[in-house]
């Protein structure tokens, strides 16, 4: 300590320091900057909605809204009279989603039951990260897998299946969403308190009975919410269907032939040369808007279920 420093009290030091304008200014400025950054996510949503609505309205100045919503023929590339009826694309999307759901829900929930009720801690810690790898595989890789592996296998068993079909990408989309259902459902089951399991064991229940009659009903809202969320992912999945499902929109329930989904149509148009400002160019926004509404409805349903029916222990 230098003894010849001018003597000032601690109080004076504090007063001097906190009066420094810059510091006070930063303290006031930072939250405002951060708030601005936080609004970027809101702006993104507004951007998405605004873009979709704006371009869709332009599309509807050229195409009748009613025939778009109820039309069963989607031939935008027809030279003489292009038709824009969204139903074939919706049906294509639903086919893929239905197949994926049939594959993913039983396997996903069974996996969740095994991990949360039967598996030891060591097994769980080994398997969960591997399942997470499955969730992290890029969808273009899954698309390649569907086209070059799953489709040939299916065709060797059922020769009538076309090269581009709904079954193969449907199954692979299902595989893609298994980890999502398994992991979220497992979280829901793990949060069921052990006291409830012990109660059932004390009455002589087997592990299976505990899992099916105690844990599953108690965790049901979480499981349903995870399933709805996974289905929403399947609706919006793009690359797997763009690679393996073909590009023939049809208004039927055949799953062995080439189909087209909403997402695959957007990819088809944007990889081709649909000129800016043409009706086809605007049609991708109308299709995108329909897709957005579908997934938004599913996501909100999932949020509603997990909030409304969540059991607190």
């Amino acid at each position, binding site marked *: 300590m230098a003894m010849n420093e001018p003597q000032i009290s601690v109080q004076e030091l*504090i007063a001097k320091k906190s009066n420094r304008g810059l510091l006070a200014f930063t303290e006031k400025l*930072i*939250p405002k900057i*951060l*708030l601005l*950054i*936080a609004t*970027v*996510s809101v702006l*993104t*949503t507004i*951007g*998405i909605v605004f873009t*979709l609505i704006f371009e869709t309205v332009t599309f509807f100045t050229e195409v009748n809204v009613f025939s778009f919503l109820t039309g069963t023929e989607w031939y935008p590339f027809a030279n003489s009279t292009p038709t824009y009826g969204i139903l074939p694309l919706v049906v294509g999307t639903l086919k893929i989603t239905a197949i994926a759901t049939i594959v993913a829900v*039983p*396997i996903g929930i*069974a*996996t969740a039951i*095994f*991990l949360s009720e*039967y*598996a030891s801690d060591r097994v769980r810690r080994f398997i969960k990260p*591997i*399942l997470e*790898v*499955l969730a*992290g*595989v*890029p969808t*273009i*890789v899954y*698309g*390649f*897998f569907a086209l*070059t*592996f799953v489709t040939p296998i299916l065709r060797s068993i059922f020769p009538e299946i076309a090269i581009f079909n709904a079954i193969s990408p449907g199954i692979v989309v299902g*595989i893609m969403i298994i*980890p999502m259902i*398994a992991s979220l459902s497992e979280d829901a089951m793990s949060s069921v308190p052990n006291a409830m399991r012990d109660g059932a064991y004390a009455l002589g229940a087997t592990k*299976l*009975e505990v899992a099916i009659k105690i844990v599953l009903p108690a965790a049901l809202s979480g499981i349903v919410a995870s399933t709805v*969320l996974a289905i*929403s992912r399947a*609706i*919006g*999945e*793009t*690359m797997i269907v*763009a690679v393996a499902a073909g590009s023939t929109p049809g208004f039927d329930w055949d799953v062995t032939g080439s189909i087209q989904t909403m*997402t695959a149509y*957007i*990819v088809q148009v944007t990889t081709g040369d649909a000129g800016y400002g043409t009706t086809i160019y605007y049609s*991708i*926004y109308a299709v*995108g808007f329909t*897709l*957005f509404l579908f*997934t938004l409805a599913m*996501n*909100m349903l999932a949020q509603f279920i997990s909030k409304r029916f969540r059991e607190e222990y």
Partner: protein
Amino acid sequence: MKYVNHEEVAAKTKTRLTKNTILKGVFAAATSFGLIVLAILLYRIVTQGSEYLSFDFFTSFASRIPENSGIKAAIQGSIYLMLVVAPVSMFLGVGTAIYLEEYAKKNKFTNFIKVNISNLAGVPSVVFGLLGLTIFVRFFDLGISILAAGLTMSLLILPIIIVASQEAIRAVPNELREASFAMGATRWQTILRVVLPASIPGILTGSILALSRAIGETAPLVVIGIPTILMFTPDSIMSTFTALPMQIFDWTKRPQVTFHDVAAAGIIVLMGLLIIMNSIAVFIRNKYQKRY
């Protein structure tokens, strides 16, 4: 007097136990299904693509001849893309997380931001492509550039980074903040010097996982109109470029089957990148994450 028919109970218990054993087998089989698919997928791709994977594969451009095809432009494009996505998405994501966890009051607007973020996480990536095409490529006239694609991709992974950073910041115990306030530090000083350093491992882990998702994303790039065959490497963020998943998509679509083997080689590189990034994330999590 006999209250319990032991034979009947034993018989019933036996069927119940058998059921339990059988169903346990079924659940285990379902669990192994995912693992088996992953093993087949990796095995198939490695055996299919390894013969095309050579040093030349990394130093050649795309070609009409499968044997001469390479990923020089694609891999550089992907790296440049990440150089835009990483800073932009982390700046926006961490900033939002700090605001929500440290500053935001519990009111309707804060709640609105939170609901909005979880809804944004559920928007299909192809729709983000439409956003990027309209806003960045056309409206701001950035063209089909690294910057336009990078900004689109940043917005796509923003929700993941926000949620991961929020969890990391929330995990910092309040005692640390209170200690800092007690020393006379202001709120921002506390955040900058106490909260952020303590939560950086969690933030980095989440961000690396989000970035590895962005490296594999194809749909938004397709919609923006990123080309697949380029004979040059990007020289600035305004350059046109191509990316690894786009190159794989192009090869997958080609009718010649030999191109599928080239696609498999490209997938090996892409998966290799992802595994490296995931390993780094796991390493950071295990090494630096403190438990309070």
